[in-house]
């Protein structure tokens, strides 16, 4: 079974994503900001990360940069899910190593489809 880490400072969003992802029986781990997520990654093996952009302490882009610096998470798929439509931030996110950039609100089934396909790709390579 695959584990997905949801990083968002809003507990509502974390709960919502949790419910959506549980439909396909993924295991969910939650973190409330980038710092918290880095800590969680220290003791949970994660297969995919869904991360918000604007968060306190460590924002999404900073987090992804840190993530890519870590040997174990160099290739882990990352979806950035944010309200921001700012093109510059979008570019920054891709530069940092985000695999996919989605805008809130996202249709649940669409998100599930994207998660599935990103995880599938992973398997093909590995």
């Amino acid at each position, binding site marked *: 079974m695959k584990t997905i880490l949801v990083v968002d400072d809003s507990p*509502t969003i974390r*709960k919502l994503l949790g419910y959506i992802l549980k439909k396909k029986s993924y295991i969910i781990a939650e973190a409330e900001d980038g710092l918290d997520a880095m800590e969680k990654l220290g003791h949970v093996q994660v297969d995919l990360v869904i991360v918000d952009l604007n968060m306190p302490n460590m924002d999404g882009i900073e987090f992804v940069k840190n993530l890519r610096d870590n040997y174990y998470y160099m290739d882990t798929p990352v979806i950035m899910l944010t*309200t921001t439509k700012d093109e510059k931030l979008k570019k920054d996110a891709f530069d940092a190593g985000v695999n996919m950039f989605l805008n*809130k609100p996202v249709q*649940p089934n669409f998100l599930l489809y994207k998660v599935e396909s990103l995880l599938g790709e992973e398997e093909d390579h590995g």
Partner: protein
Amino acid sequence: MDDQALQKDEMQEIIDEFIVESSELMDNVIQDIVAIEQSQDEEKVNGIFRAVHTIKGTASFLGFNVLTALAHKGEDLLGLVRKGEMKTDQEVADVLLEAFDLMKLMIEDIRTGGVENHDASSVIEKLAGFLVSKKKNAEPPQEEKKKIGEMLIEEKIITKGELEDVLKKQETETDKMVGEIVVEEKLATEGQVKNTLIKQKTAGKEEQSIRIDVKKLDELMNLVGELVLGKNRLILVNSLAKKEGGGESVLDNLADVTSYVEGITNELQLSVMRARLVPIGKVFSKIPRMVRDLCGEFKKDIELKVEGEETELDRSLIEALTDPMIHIVRNSVDHGVEVPAEREKKGKNRKGLLSIKAYNEGNHVIIDIFDDGKGINLQAVKDKVKEKGLMSEAELASLSTKEAMNLVFIPGLSTAQKVSSVSGRGVGMDVVKTNIEKMNGQAYIDSEEGQWTKLTIKLPLTLAIMRALIVKSEDELFAIPLNMVTELVKLKEGLLKTVDKNEVLVLRNTVIPLMDLQKTFSRKTEEKQGGYVVICNIGEKVVGIKVHSVVGQEEVVIKPLGEFLKNIKGISGATIRGDGKVILILDIPSVILHHNNQKKAYSHLRAVSASAMN
């Protein structure tokens, strides 16, 4: 939102979560807006921006489109503030507050009806108007740079003088950060500056916490209460066993277990009590906004200083404290602090000061509310009291300044010349005092006319467990809250006097009204000689309680008397002692109130004894 993807109950749960989260965020945001209106603080602006952004994101997910649109425009405006392209002056703060108030209303709509019921188009338009027309130049955000310097001083890496030099230098080399200059000047190493910078970033991180249903905590508290009673019984059994003798080893064991259980119970009780404590900031958080609005209404200019928001207090007290605090602050703004022109004439600073400070003192929390306004006109208070026929001239003359000051707490008294919409109707201070006394607390006032007024509130940390003096009347035991007891007097002949069929105690030239527990609560009426008087003190009022004997101090767990018995005057609850007996806890404020009805006798004697002394 797609209904097939989520079940209805799941959706409801998520919406509930959203309501809790966003109302909390909005409360903080409104508070912070008031703060940044006073002084621009980058951290706070970022916090506000993030909160509004979060609400926007979540609301869009849940399909609350009006809320989303409003949050979106608010976020745009905040974006300008964040980038330093707009200054948060009163105008900007006003429109932001209007938007956030509306957002709060909508969240409330969602809570009650599931949909937003308010129209946001006019506010959105207003926000949009600000976005296009008013790009004001903001001051360069000095705040953060300053902070690094201050932190370096705190860490004792550089001195104040050195920092001043650095800041001077920064004025000529504006593109450099304080940290860089400090390193250049070799005042600190690069490592030290970096460490401080990291500290600065993490300083704001909140403590870890979880949300717990209050009911669960109450349950825990009840259980701990039972445990405390069990412990008391065990202590009693232990001492009984010692008295009656028995096997040495059994006794040793019992003593061991007793002290062990005692220790654990005490600690458990303390930590459960602490779990119920909430920072007092919850009450204070509403005040900045209120002062701001009241200042607008009364055309006053007031600087608000709040200290000690982190001081903790039992949850139930926090709720009960809100109303009195609002009353007091309104009073200070309306009647205390003068309008700027009047202040100037008196040679005071145009800007008035209202300072609120909370701190711990032993098992109590003290709240000081201070304003540098016109103070209390003692003569006006006295005149009013006389005019209303509440006290005689002789009585008023015999009062100390402090006693006279506290006359403002008498019901039906207001010294304000004009009645305004918020205060001056003569209800207020007495309500404040009764509310505080209901919480086992006390309120005093102190003032210097024309200069300042200070109101002090003293509250116990918790209501559920307290130390009490156990007294005996006939065969009946009663508990008196220990924080009110000031002294015990052993009765000797001649100490008691009778005035208008009411007994009083003359102690060191003061006359103290007496309440005889035997007469009030026991059925038997035969007189018994001797005994004690427990002198109780609440604020400036004193009452003596006549008892037959005093048993000692004990920790009692307050249990309510239940639906049918809850309105008995003079009794606030009951507790169970070590031997399993139920005893009643006396409610001293209501005992005093009862005695105030017999005040005339009291004042009569006061005059008599005063003449007798001379």
